[in-house]
Structure formats: C-alpha cells, structure tokens
C-alpha cells in the first residue's frame, strides 16, 4: 500500500472515531476496564509465580528421629524414607552436627551453649527434599507415619494454600477477562457497524467508481485498531504509576526476608506490551466481525 493511501485510511479511521462520539467513548471505556483487569491479574500472577520460584529452593522436610532409635533403626528408616513416593533427596544430619550448626549460627553468644555438648538435647535429623514443592505436604505426612519418627517439620502447608490461591486467581481472572473481552469486542463491533451504516452511500459510490475491497475495508480496521489502542492508554498509565508507588512503599518491605516483589522495570514493560497487543487484537477483531457481517463488498 502506498504511504499516502495509508495516510488517508488513518485519517478516515480517525474521523470516524471522532464522529461516533458516545459509541467511541463506550468502546474505549470497555477496552479500558478490560485491560485494567488483564494488567492487574498479569502483575499479580507474575508476582505469585516469582514467590513460588523463590520458595521452591527452600522447601524441605525435617524428620526428627526418636532418640532411642538404634543405628540399625536409623538405617532402616533412611531406606524407608527414600522409598516414599515423591522424595527426591535425603540427607542425614547427626545431632552433633545439628548442635555445631546451632552454636555456629549464634556467633559469639554460642559459647554459652558449649556446655550442652555434654548433654546434647537435639535429635538426629533427616533433611528430605520433595520432587515437587506442591507435594511436600503429602510426602511429610507419609514420613510422619513411619516408625522411629518423632516428628516432621516443614514450611507448613503454605505451598498448598499458595497453589490453591493461584489456581483460584487464575480461574477468576480468566472468567472475568473473558467476559470483559467479549463485552469490549461487542461494543467495538457495534461502533464499527454504526460507521458502516452512516457511510453506506459513500461505500456504494466507492464500489461503483472502482475502489478495491481492501481499500474500502481499511478505514474500518484502523478505526477498530484506534479504539483498542485508545483503550490501552489509561490502564498502562495507571498500572505504571500504581505499581511503581506500590513497589516504592512495600515492594522491598514485604515482612518476608527472602521475598521481594518484582521490580517495576522488569514487569511493567512486559505488561504494557501485553496490554497494547490485547487492545489492538480486540479492536481489529471487533471491526473484523462487523466488516464481515455488514460490509458486503
């Protein structure tokens, strides 16, 4: 297509946007709401995944062995733990090493506990890694029921809750976004239909003076595209500003030492690109629907 032709289509598309006033406003608002939700969920999901990734390396089950267990019992237990489905790795930490680690972790103040070496109060421990973090709960439960196990300890069932929560977030997000997406497409299609009806005479004249079909259709695609892109502006602006503020205030002070929210410069660019793409696709999709239905050229 020649540059001046493209220029003409953009001008025509823009003129239609202005002329459709309220319908333009309604479509752009629908795209805006939809993209705000898409963007918010995108940021949420990216951070939850990041949180899961952070935790993943840290998930282990600590198995405390009964103090009266004999060395043979311990060996027997280790074999049994290894056989529990979902167990990836088992490491033995004798109670002496446990105490060393404990004292070392206290630094200077550890001296006061040196006397404990006579009467070590700790248990021998197996440190077990599950193959998949979300199965930690299950693995821990099975180990707990083995003989000579006094207790098991693991990062509680935070993982299960987290995974249940992200699933819910995903489902709710998907349903909500699908609904909003169709609303936006529907409104855009109706706006374009309005243009097609208003330009009926013009289209008829274009046809008998020999305009090609694609030439006739282009301004409508541009109009849809512009509606979609106009709908991106507010959500991108709000999310960039909002997430930036959020990150400044609590991004690095989550109360969890090991976790920080993803920094804005990492996520906002991706989010903006996503919103722009979704906005453009929804716009063109809406105009495609109307053009196919109402523009018989």
């Amino acid at each position, binding site marked *: 297509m*020649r540059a*001046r*032709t493209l220029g*003409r289509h953009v001008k025509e598309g823009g003129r239609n946007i202005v002329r459709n006033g309220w319908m333009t406003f309604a479509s752009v608002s629908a795209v805006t709401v939809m993209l705000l939700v898409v963007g918010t969920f995108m940021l949420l999901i990216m951070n939850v995944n990041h949180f899961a990734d952070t935790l993943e390396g840290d998930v282990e089950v600590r198995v405390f062995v009964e103090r009266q267990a004999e060395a043979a019992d311990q060996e027997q237990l280790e074999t049994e733990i290894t056989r529990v489905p979902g167990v990836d790795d088992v490491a033995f930490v004798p109670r002496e090493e446990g105490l060393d680690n404990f004292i070392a972790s206290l630094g200077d103040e550890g001296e006061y506990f040196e006397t404990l070496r006579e009467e070590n109060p700790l248990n021998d421990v197996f440190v077990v890694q599950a193959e998949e973090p979300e199965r930690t709960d299950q693995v821990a439960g099975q180990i707990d029921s083995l003989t000579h196990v006094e207790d098991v300890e693991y990062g509680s069932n935070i993982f299960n809750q987290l995974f249940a929560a992200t699933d819910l977030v995903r489902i709710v997000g998907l349903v909500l976004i699908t609904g909003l997406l169709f609303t936006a497409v529907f409104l855009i299609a109706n706006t374009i239909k309005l243009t097609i009806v208003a330009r009926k*005479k*013009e289209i*008829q*004249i*274009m*046809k*008998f*003076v*020999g*305009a*090609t*079909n694609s*030439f*006739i259709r282009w301004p409508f695609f541009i109009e849809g595209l512009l509606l979609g892109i106009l709908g991106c502006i507010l959500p991108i602006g709000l999310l960039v500003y909002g997430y930036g503020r959020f990150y400044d205030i609590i991004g690095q002070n989550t109360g969890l030492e090991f976790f920080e929210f993803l920094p804005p410069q990492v996520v906002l660019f991706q989010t903006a690109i996503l919103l722009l793409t979704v906005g453009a696709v929804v716009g063109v999709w809406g105009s495609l629907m109307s053009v196919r239905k109402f523009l018989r050229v």
Partner: protein
Amino acid sequence: MIELNDVWKTYPNGVMAMNGMSIYIQSGEFVYVVGPSGAGKSTFIKMIYREERPTRGEILVGGENLAHMKERHVPYLRRNIGVVFQDFKLLPSMNVFENIAFAMEVVEASKPEIRRRVMDVLDIVRLKNKARFQPHELSGGEQQRVSIARAIVNNPDVLICDEPTGNLDPETSWEIMHLLEEINDRGTTIIMATHNREIVNNMRKRVIAIENGRISRDEVRGRYGYES
C-alpha cells in the same frame, strides 16, 4: 467493445429480467436503451459494470468475459466504466470538487494529479465557478453535471447512464444531452437507458428497444416508438 451473447438473467426471486439477449456495441457508439418500465433496461446496465451477474451467457467488455470475472478484478473493470444515475448519488457532506476528487482518491491517484484532472472535468461540465459549492446549493441539472464529471474523471472508455434526465425538466435535460454528446465526441462510448421520447426522437442515435427482457428493435438512427 461491449458484446452480449445469449444472456439470461433470473433474479433470486424468480423474476426473469433477461431472456436471451445478444448485442454488439462498438467503441465510440452512442446508444439509447428504451422500453417500458420493468423491461430490463436497468438490469442490462448493471450487467455491464458487473453489479449483476448473468445466469447464463457471455458478456464481453474490452475483451474480458464478465460472467467468469474474478471478484477481485471487478474494481479494475469499473475504473474503465463511468456510471451516472437518475438520482445523482452525490455525497451531501462534500463540496463539488471533493465529490469529483473522491472517485480519484479511492483509486489512489496522487493529489496534484487529482487537482489537475478535477479542474479539467469541471471545465468540461462548465462548473468551474461552483467548485466549492455543496450539492444542496446546486440545481438538479448542475448536480447531474457533477455526477457526470465524477463518472468521467478517471477517463473511462464507457459511460453508462440509467435515466440521467429522469428527474430533470426538459430544458435542463437538453443541457445534459449536449454534454453527453460532447463527451461522446471525445471518443467515449455512451449507453443511456431512457424514457425521454423527445430526446430520442430529436437527437437521433442508435436505439435498442427492450421488452420483457428481449431485444424487440435495434435501429441505427432510431425513434422512441412507444406511445407512453
């Protein structure tokens, strides 16, 4: 130039508007198409610019068979055929210049080319002084001249007119006819469906009479021949 070979047309509702028409029109001819209302004149006109397809038969325009023409070639056919209607079909939101320029814009002509050519055709239809007028500020005859200017602006070989004087008083009709004759003198083939007995009988040209979708008469310097 334009050739119909045993052309039949049945509309989807069952109306048989053309029943085996064969015509040959040479390049540069001026042809009246006459006949009672509902005879099939407009259907014949629409066939030539491929607004309607024949149910059977062959329509050749400039050597191409429209019956088998691919949809995407139709726009290029139409660039070589100007069409003028009884109701002018001007865009009320555009002035005279823009209405004519529109036909060139949509076939992607350049701005300077458009300016030059629109001024030329405004000269031909003698409306140069009204280039900035809106259609509603013009008389019926002037509006029809604008629509003729639009039809010839892309230099078509053929100009087809479906009752171009149908909405005009006799005097204005004669102005339009003199304009069409002038355009014909420059080499453009003209096919004109009409009900205007006075014009057909006084500006003698080839007359093709249609009745019930058939050619009932074809005379080189014919007369209107109906008592309506």
